[in-house]
C-alpha cells in the first residue's frame, strides 16, 4: 500500500502556527515580489479570492474582508516542511518527498496492519508535534493514493483527514466522485478531449478502451489508467504535479564524496532547467535534498532537504545549477554514504515577461536584465552568463513587504513569550 500525505493549506498553516490568533481567519500568501496569491486558507477561498490573483488588484478585497496578507517566507516553509518530512520518514520504510508539502510513503510489508488506524496515529503525531495539520490517503497505487487523499481532505468530518481505499467498492465510489480533470496528471487539454467523449469522472476514464488511451495519451496515460484500476505501475519520478518538476535519482552505489554528489545534483538542476524551458516556464523556488539508504540500518542515517527562494524566476541551466550547488553545500554532511539526491523546482510561472505585464507589480529592472542574461546565455555560453548572474545580486532586491519573521531559523526572530 501507498500513502500520499499532504499538508493542509501548508503555507497558511505555517504562518498560523506562530500567530494562533489567525486560526479561522482568512490568510493569503503572495508569490516572490508580492506579485500574486500563491496560497490561501480555507477562509480566503470562501471569500472567493482565486489562486493567482494579482495582489494589487485585490488590495481592496483584502482590506474589506480583513484578509491577512503574507509575503512568501521560504525560510519558514522550508524548515517546517523538513520537520514534517523527517517525522513522516519514521513511520514507513520508504518515503518519497514529492513537493514541499507532499510525500508518498510506501507501506511494504504492512499488509496485516490496520492502516486507517495507523494513519490516524501518524496524522495525530505529526499534527501535534509540528503544528501542521496533514491529510493522508492510502491506496494500493500512487495514483489512487492521490485520489484517497482528496477524499480525506474534502470530507474531514467523515474521514478524520485519513482515508483508505482498501476495497473495490471504495475504489469505484471514489473514482466516480472525482472529476476527470482533477485526476493527477490529466491536464486541461486531455480533459477537454475526454469531455468531448463524455468522459466526466475518473471512473469513466479508468473504464475506457486502453488502446485509445495509449494512442492519445501515450504510455504515461496508459499507466495512469492502470494505476486507477488498482494496478501499480508508476515509479515515483514518472508523473509530475502540475506545479513542480522534480529530478531525483537513486545512485547505483552509495556515494560519500562531495564532488561526485555535486556533479549529480548539478546535472539534475540542468535537467530541471531544460524541462522548464521546454514548457516555457520559470521556477521561483528550488528544493535540494540528499538522503542515505534507509534500508541500511547498519550505516549512519542522514537526510536533509533545503528550500531556496530564488531572487528572480529562472529557467537558466547555469543559474539553477549554481543555486542547486549552493543548496547542496548547506545540507551535505561528511561521513555519510548517500544513496539518493534530487532537485525539485516549484512555484512555476510563465516565462519572464508574462509575469510583469500580467500583474504589473515588480521591479521594472527585472525583465530587461533577464533578457540580457538569456541573450548572453544563448550567444556566449557559460562563462559570460556566470558573470552576468554574479552581478545581479546588487541589482535585484526582492520585494517582501509582508514578510513574517523567520520564526524557526533565526534566533532574533523566534516568538516572544510573556513570562
Amino acid at each position: 500500500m501507498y500513502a500520499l500525505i499532504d499538508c493542509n493549506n501548508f503555507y497558511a498553516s505555517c504562518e498560523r502556527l506562530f500567530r494562533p490568533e489567525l486560526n479561522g481567519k482568512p490568510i493569503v500568501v503572495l508569490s516572490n515580489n508580492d506579485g500574486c496569491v500563491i496560497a490561501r486558507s480555507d477562509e480566503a477561498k470562501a471569500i472567493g479570492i482565486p489562486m493567482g490573483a494579482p495582489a494589487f488588484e485585490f488590495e481592496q478585497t483584502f482590506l474589506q474582508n480583513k484578509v491577512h496578507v503574507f509575503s512568501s517566507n521560504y525560510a519558514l516553509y522550508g524548515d517546517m516542511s523538513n520537520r514534517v518530512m523527517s517525522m513522516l520518514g519514521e513511520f514507513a520504510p520508504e518515503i518519497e518527498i514529492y513537493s514541499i508539502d507532499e510525500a508518498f510513503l510506501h507501506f511494504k510489508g504492512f499488509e496485516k496492519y490496520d492502516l486507517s488506524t495507523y494513519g490516524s496515529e501518524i496524522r495525530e503525531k505529526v499534527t501535534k508535534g509540528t503544528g501542521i495539520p496533514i491529510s493522508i490517503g492510502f491506496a494500493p497505487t500512487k495514483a489512487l493514493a492521490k485520489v484517497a487523499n482528496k477524499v480525506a481532505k474534502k470530507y474531514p468530518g467523515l474521514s478524520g483527514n485519513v482515508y483508505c481505499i482498501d476495497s473495490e467498492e471504495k475504489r469505484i465510489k471514489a473514482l466516480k466522485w472525482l472529476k476527470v480533470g482533477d485526476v493527477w496528471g490529466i491536464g486541461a487539454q486531455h480533459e477537454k478531449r475526454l469531455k468531448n467523449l463524455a468522459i466526466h469522472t475518473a471512473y469513466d476514464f479508468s473504464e475506457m478502451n486502453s488502446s485509445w488511451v495509449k494512442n492519445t495519451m501515450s504510455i504515461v496515460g496508459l499507466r495512469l489508467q492502470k494505476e486507477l484500476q488498482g494496478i501499480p505501475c508508476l515509479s515515483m519520478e514518472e508523473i509530475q504535479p502540475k506545479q513542480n518538476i522534480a529530478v531525483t535519482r537513486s545512485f547505483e552505489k552509495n556515494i560519500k564524496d562531495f564532488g561526485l554528489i555535486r556533479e549529480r545534483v548539478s546535472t539534475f538542476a540542468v535537467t530541471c532547467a531544460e524541462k522548464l524551458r521546454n514548457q516555457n516556464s520559470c521556477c521561483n523556488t528550488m528544493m535540494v535534498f540528499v538522503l542515505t539508504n534507509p534500508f541500511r540500518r547498519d550505516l549512519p542515517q542522514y537526510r536533509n532537504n533545503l528550500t531556496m527562494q530564488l531572487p528572480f524566476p529562472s529557467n537558466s541551466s547555469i543559474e539553477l545549477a549554481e543555486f542547486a550547488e549552493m543548496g547542496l553545500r548547506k545540507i551535505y554532511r561528511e561521513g555519510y554514504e548517500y544513496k539518493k539526491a534530487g532537485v525539485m523546482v516549484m512555484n512555476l510561472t510563465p516565462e519572464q515577461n508574462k509575469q510583469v505585464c500580467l500583474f504589473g507589480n515588480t521591479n521594472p529592472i527585472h525583465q530587461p536584465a533577464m533578457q540580457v542574461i538569456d541573450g548572453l546565455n544563448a550567444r556566449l555560453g557559460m562563462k559570460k552568463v556566470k558573470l552576468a548572474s554574479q552581478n545581479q545580486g546588487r541589482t535585484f532586491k526582492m520585494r517582501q513587504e509582508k514578510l513574517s519573521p523567520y520564526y524557526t531559523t533565526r534566533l532574533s526572530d523566534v516568538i516572544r513569550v510573556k513570562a
Partner: protein
Amino acid sequence: MNNIIQGREVCIYALDESEALLLPLVGSPVNAGFPSPATDFLENKIDLNAELIKNPSTTFVAITNGESMIGAGISDKDILIIDKSLPAKDGNIAVCFLDGEFTLKKLKIEKDVIWLMPQNPLFKPIKVTKENDFQIWGILTYSIQKHVRTY
C-alpha cells in the same frame, strides 16, 4: 536553529538539526614538553544540540519577556526550548497561547479547570475558562540563561 546565508543572488535557509555543536569535554592544562594524557580522549565531545533537543522535528525556540517565572529560575530574555510533541501534564511549564498572546506558565491541571501558575508572588494565577481563546502550544524542556557580564 541555523544561520541564514545571504548570498548575492539567493538566500539560503535551513533548520539545522544535524550539525552537532561540539565542545571538548576534557580540558587539561598543557604541560610543555610532555604529551597530554588527555589527547587520547579528545574524541569525547558534548553535543549540546543532542543533549537539549531530543526531538528536533518538534522542538522550537522562543525568548521570554517578563519576570513572572523567576521562581522557576526563568528570567527575562531567557532562551526557551519547547517540545510540541510532549503531552501537557500537571506541573509542567508550558508555552500557552491565551487570548492573543503567548505566555509561559506552570500548568496546574484540575478536573474541570486549568490554572496557569506564575512563579512569582507579584503575579496572580490565571484561571482558564471556556471563554478564553486558549491553547497549550508546547512544553518547556530547557531554559537557557546568560550569566556572564560583558560590560
